[in-house]
């Protein structure tokens, strides 16, 4: 343990997490033989100490992506490498070893804690799992609790005796117990009140600095993503449609969907912007060929329905400074914030 308590020195050559060509199909409901691509051809990297945001709405595939990353389901295509080791198979020995370093905090703080276990037992569980036979160090459990802002009096409580924010702190303590290098935060604050969300966001920032943690923050809340992340990947219908540094994305998005999303989010500073994306996303599996966003694309309308959008799915093309966007006309995307303000 002592070796991993200090943040490891970043190895510039290989990223901490590398996902390539990741796909996950599910059988299409009601149609035998055909499949829904819940996640398709997803590729990204997370470097040591970096926070990557994954943004998307329902049906974007972000939940399926998380479940693949955590080894809860197996991908149908592609590869997941953690610190250079292939951990794609959920049951493989590499995956088992990697679980120490790759932890998770889920969305539902109360529900993700077993209602029958005390806080002490909950925090002890990862230790018992990964260090079987070693007596539980009670001082270590207490110090973990203190690290997330809880105290000795909480040790004997159960989930229903704690507030939502306190439950989320317990979940974070569980995730931290094994001194991981990467923590997947799956909508960690979306069921919390604003003031409690602020406490958890502050805590996550502190812990990141103290332990040199990397996060993958999955969220639909753009203000939270903007607050905590260094880089953001935007997903739509199972694909990454844009990826950029957080500053770049919010200042100069190059994908019409990402633009629509940024414009739509009601913000305290400026209220909600214009409605760029009309209608609903197509039902699962409805996208056969062409750009998955074309049915709602405002830019395609502006450009007079170019035929290429129907014909071919745009590849995720890399622009300068690692800004990637999957749009045939990404050069035509204008600054949404200014557009919206007018």
């Amino acid at each position, binding site marked *: 343990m002592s070796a991993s308590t200090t943040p490891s020195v970043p190895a510039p050559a290989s990223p901490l997490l590398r996902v390539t060509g990741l796909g996950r199909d599910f059988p299409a409901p009601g149609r035998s033989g055909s499949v829904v691509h819940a996640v398709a051809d997803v590729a990204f990297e997370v470097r040591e100490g970096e926070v990557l945001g994954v943004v998307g709405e329902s049906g974007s595939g972000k939940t399926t992506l998380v479940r693949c990353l955590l*080894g809860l389901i197996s991908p149908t295509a592609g590869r997941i490498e953690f610190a250079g080791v292939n951990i794609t198979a959920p049951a493989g020995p590499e995956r088992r070893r990697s679980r120490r370093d790759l932890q998770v905090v889920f969305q539902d703080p109360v529900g993700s804690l077993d209602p029958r276990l005390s806080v002490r037992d909950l925090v002890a569980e990862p230790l018992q799992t990964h260090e079987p036979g070693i007596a539980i160090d009670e001082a270590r459990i207490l110090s973990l609790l203190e690290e997330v802002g809880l105290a000795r009096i909480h040790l004997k409580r159960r989930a229903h005796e704690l507030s939502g924010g306190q439950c989320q702190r317990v979940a974070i303590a569980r995730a931290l117990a094994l001194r991981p290098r990467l923590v997947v935060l799956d909508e960690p604050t979306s069921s919390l009140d604003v003031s409690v969300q602020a406490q958890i966001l502050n805590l996550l920032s502190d812990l990141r600095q103290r332990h040199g943690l990397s996060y993958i923050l999955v969220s639909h809340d753009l203000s939270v993503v903007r607050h905590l992340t260094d880089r953001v990947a935007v997903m739509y219908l199972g694909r990454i449609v844009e990826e950029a540094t957080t500053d770049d994305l919010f200042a100069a998005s190059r994908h019409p969907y990402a633009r629509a999303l940024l414009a739509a989010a009601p913000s305290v500073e400026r209220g909600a912007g214009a409605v760029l994306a009309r209608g609903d996303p197509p039902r699962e599996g409805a996208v056969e060929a062409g750009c998955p966003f074309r049915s709602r694309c405002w830019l395609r309308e502006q450009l007079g329905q170019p035929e290429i959008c129907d014909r071919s799915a745009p590849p995720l093309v890399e622009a300068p400074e690692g800004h990637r966007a999957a749009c045939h006309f990404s050069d035509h995307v204008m600054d949404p914030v200014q557009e919206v303000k007018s």
Partner: protein
Amino acid sequence: MSSLTAPVPGRLAQWRAALSMDPLALAGLVVVVFLTIIAILGPAAAPYPEQGIGTANVAEAASAPGPTHLLGTDQLGRDVLSRIIVGTRSALGISVAVVALAIAIGVPLGAIAGYRRGRLDAVIMRSTDLALAFPPLLLAMAIVAALGPGLEHAAIALAISWWPWYARLARSTAVSLRERPFVEAARAIGVSDRRIILRHIIPNSLSPIIVQATVDVGTVILAAGSLAFIGLGARAPQADWGLMVAEGRTVILDQWWIPTFPGLAIFIAVLAFNLLGDGLRDRLDPRHRR
């Protein structure tokens, strides 16, 4: 089995609070506690312990209820009340044993089936279908034929036809628990399947199982009585409610008290366990709890 059936600490207070609100369930609880005490005391609680155990007292054969024999005596002159009191232990004992055995077999199988799903699930659940399709009386007869008559053999027969219900119950709760975030969280941490089933799935399935078990203790009393009635359970001179009804059924018109009071004992016990079980269901059912 005690680790599975024992109420979890902290629940006790909850139960008490729950029961205090429902007078019928409370009545059930009082009767169940009363029966349990009598079962523990056994012959010591009977006015005529010797007769209760089976010693004949021909001089007073078939006397009607009166001051010396509150519920009368049977054809062999034994005090019916004492027989009923002594019979309580076997009635409750066999029921609890049957239910415990059924839980011991059914719950782990059901939990594994529901949590693992897939082929294992199919195999386990088809075997419950098979076990349920087999007529319980036929099964009891087969077992008694093979092992000889007796209460223990009847108990085995009952447990074999009872466990599938617990397997199904445990499976359905396991299927829903499996999707609960805390189970997912345990998997993400890397907790083994075995440990998830033992530590998360089974303990969280207990509430509905406890409710079902309470009701079933009553139902098994009834079933064991039926087996005894047709000669597949307890044998004379053992004090057994079902056997007493069976023995008295030919004289019901003349000495009505001989079969009626043991029958009433079965009725009250079954009713009490049902009331208690229903009361517990209302409160312990996860859908009603916060």
